[in-house]
């Protein structure tokens, strides 16, 4: 079956052929016809996405919209019911080294017996390979990564003694260690202090100046247009995607958040119209 599809590719491109003409191979993240279901209930449906290179991309949507699942689907962490996600034109398993992942902070036990720098060094484990210890050079890089996120002085601190914002910075430093081209970040701004938020935004801008692409799950609608230059509005399906300024419209938000947002807006309008 596989050989057949290869043979027919030139004349009859099949639905699942690897290189569709509209996806140039250099595109950091191309998603086609992607559906993910947990226990028969679909979480993501018919996702079609092309993320352009060097952009800061915000993924926005209500709770349960499948934002984290979208990242996990790109990373082969959840089984796909259909479709595919390609990293720079190849399946994830072939281009793993070009992707860095920042999971949600609450996904790990922070009372674990390791120091900040030990966690950052995990970003180099794949380079180090089986059985070998993390060497001096990698430890120096880990230290640099910690300094880039502004907490070099906390390198030897046990991770439970860090604040939430500092823990988030440790995760970012670990992603920097991976030295990737595409960064997938799950709610890095969740419950962090103002200084950390600023530091993360700075870091994102620097990454994008260097041509890196960042896909960031984000919650705070108030900062969406200042932080990101590209947007994906998600609620099980992609409601809208494109340049942030054009995509962040009242109409699109209404479609994404449905009743929840309209209720807020009605309340706001009611307040405005009350004579005072």
């Amino acid at each position, binding site marked *: 079956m596989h050989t057949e599809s290869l043979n027919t590719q030139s004349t009859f491109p099949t639905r699942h052929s690897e290189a569709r003409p509209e996806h140039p191979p250099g595109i950091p993240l191309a998603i086609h016809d992607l559906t993910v279901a947990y226990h028969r209930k679909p979480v993501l449906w018919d996702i079609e996405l092309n993320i352009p290179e060097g952009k800061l991309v915000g993924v926005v949507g209500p709770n349960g919209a499948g934002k984290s699942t979208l990242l996990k689907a790109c*990373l082969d*962490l959840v089984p796909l019911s259909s479709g595919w996600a390609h990293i720079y034109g190849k399946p994830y*398993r072939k281009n*793993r080294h070009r992707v860095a992942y920042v*999971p949600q902070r609450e996904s*790990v036990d922070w009372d674990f017996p390791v120091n900040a720098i030990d966690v950052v060094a*995990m970003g180099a*484990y*794949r380079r180090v390979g089986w059985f070998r210890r993390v060497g001096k050079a990698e430890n120096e890089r880990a230290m640099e990564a910690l300094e880039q996120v502004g907490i070099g002085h906390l390198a030897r601190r046990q991770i439970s003694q860090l604040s939430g914002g500092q823990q988030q910075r440790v995760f970012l430093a*670990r992603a920097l260690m991976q030295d990737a081209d595409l960064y997938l970040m799950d709610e890095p701004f969740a419950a962090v202090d103002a200084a950390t938020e600023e530091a993360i935004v700075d870091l994102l801008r620097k990454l994008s100046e260097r041509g890196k692409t960042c896909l960031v799950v984000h919650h705070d609608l108030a900062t969406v247009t200042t932080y990101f230059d590209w947007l994906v509005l998600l609620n099980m399906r992609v409601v809208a995607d494109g340049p942030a300024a054009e995509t962040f419209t009242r109409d699109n938000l209404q479609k994404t958040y449905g009743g929840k947002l309209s209720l807020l807006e009605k309340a706001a309008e009611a307040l405005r119209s009350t004579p005072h």
Partner: protein
Amino acid sequence: MPDLREILEVLLLQNYNTRLVVLSTTLLGIAAGLVGSFLLLRKRSLMGDALSHATLPGVAIAFAVMVALGGSGKSLPGLLLGATLSGIAGVATMLLIRHTTRLRDDVAMGFVLSVFFGVGVASLRMVQSMPGASAAGLESFIYGKTASMVSSDFLLISLVAGLSSLACLLFLKEFLLLCFDDGFAAAQGWPTLFLDVLLLGLVTAVTVIGLQSVGLILVIAFLITPPTAARFWTQRLIPMLLIAALIGGISGWLGASLSALTPQLPAGAVIVIVAALLFVLSMIFAPARGVIPRWIHQSRLRRKVDRQHLLRAAYEILEVQAGSAPVVNEPFPLALLLTKRSWTPRQLRRILKTARREDHLEPAAPDKILLSESGFGEASRATRNHRLWETYLIQYADIAPSHVDRDADMVEHILGAKLVRQLEAYLSDHDLALPVPPSPHSLEPSANP
């Protein structure tokens, strides 16, 4: 009761009968400490318990098979092979339940634990009534017994314990990543399923070689207690592994020796009691997270907080008394202090007593308070730090001035000299000119009528 010479003979491994048993249990303890550390960090302790209970049917069935083949049925390698296979069957059942149904993990573990153990007990009774075979002694697999041991059994147990320990050190980095963040590990391309199976395989190996001496009911305690105790001593993984191995080794050595001296005690229970004692000692005394060191640390902090509160309250009273003139150290009424904070008279008496002992107060009239020279200096310093911090919070953290006092009170005690200098630099434009900057909020007690 055994006399001292006998005790020493056993403890120092001079007694030939017990030497092999004690030595193998010590090695087992070291392996249990290492493997158990990862089992604990992976949060799979319950799975280990289910696994050890699932080994019992295998012991009984292996006995029956060996008798049917014409042997005595008591060959240790044969029995352990049976235990291993049935332990693996138990784990496989758990994984099957997890992946094919939507039952929770603890249900799957409870199910496997009780069903396999039940089948094991029943089949043990059956093989004991088999004609022409003596199954006496098989019960020791439940509670553990330091039976004397032939050297080939010793070699088998030592080899498995040694290889398991070696595997833990070899896969240190991989297990660490798996236990801390399996999602990240999988995204990086590590075979997390293989690593999980390997870890469970090591748990199975240690459980099986621990069956004879510790017994299947208590072997989980032998796996979990040493690493839990070690966690009190350190905040890092490698020291934790070493300490867990040490505690496991000591428990195995002492436990097996004690049980060899008093054969009526089941070995498993003695070993686990020794491990539990070491756990309690660690919990109380260990410097990193022990109860007593933590308590000392906290009461020191509380005394420091009390002292700074007292001195700052005194300074602010003097400030109000001085009005616009420079603040001078003079006696003031004791009653004023009570209005400054929510101290009860008794608390205040205790705090004043400590302050007198620390030479922060001078003797004065009974209802008056007079700071000593060092007390006054300390008071102006504490007040200054507090004000710097308050101003910083108002300027930079957008906190309403009415809420600032509480937070500042809590945080300033933790401020180091370095941070205070940083704050001074931040606020140098309006603060450095004054020894104590003016308070950013009103000093009049708001609750006062």
